[in-house]
């Protein structure tokens, strides 16, 4: 079974630029998550999708972050404009059941550096 795929693996941008991350979850997984992991901290949930609907985006900085999940499969997370404090690893995860009530599988993440 293929895992959660994310791209790119690394990205370096200047502050105020925009960036986009892509995630392809495990086939058939209804729930998709985007987490932000700042160095030395635990992952923090940014947004959770169930199929193509948003379940929770309470911690997404909506003035600069946006996310979508097209047709309930792939997802993109965008930051525009980026700030220095956005430097982090962005993790995508997916789980099989609706509501995320099964194990969440994580991708390898995209390491973003904002300079």
């Amino acid at each position, binding site marked *: 079974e293929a895992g*959660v795929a994310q791209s790119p693996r690394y990205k370096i941008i200047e502050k105020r630029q925009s960036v986009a991350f892509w995630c392809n979850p495990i086939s058939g997984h209804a*729930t998709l*998550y985007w987490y932000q992991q700042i160095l*030395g*901290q*635990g*992952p*923090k*949930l940014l947004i*959770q999708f169930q199929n193509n609907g948003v*379940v*929770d985006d309470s911690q997404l900085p909506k003035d600069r972050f946006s996310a979508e999940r097209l047709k309930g499969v792939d997802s993109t997370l965008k930051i525009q404009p980026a700030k220095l404090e956005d430097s982090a690893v962005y*993790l995508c*995860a997916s*789980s099989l059941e609706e*509501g*995320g*009530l099964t*194990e*969440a*599988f*994580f*991708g*390898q*993440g995209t390491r973003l550096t904002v300079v």
Partner: protein
Amino acid sequence: QQQVKQSPQSLIVQKGGISIINCAYENTAFDYFPWYQQFPGKGPALLIAIRPDVSEKKEGRFTISFNKSAKQFSLHIMDSQPGDSATYFCAARGSSSSNTGKLIFGQGTTLQVKP
């Protein structure tokens, strides 16, 4: 407040020793408590998980101890090996409809097992 507090931040153990990592939570609506293991450059991977209706779960060298009244749970790694050197995160997930599937992570513990 939906927080999970984890300690210690870092841990050094000799090969063959016991590694113990502790977590405490506040929200009594949490109903699932997983531990994740993360190696550098990789996403977190589920190690072992427990539900609050049992006080202990063991899988190989890994054991979760759960104290519902104290709202605490811990990970014990018996016969620690250098290959166990990684960052460990505890997490908690709520059962309420407003928190469906949302995993709250602790701050992480970096474990180093010396040969």
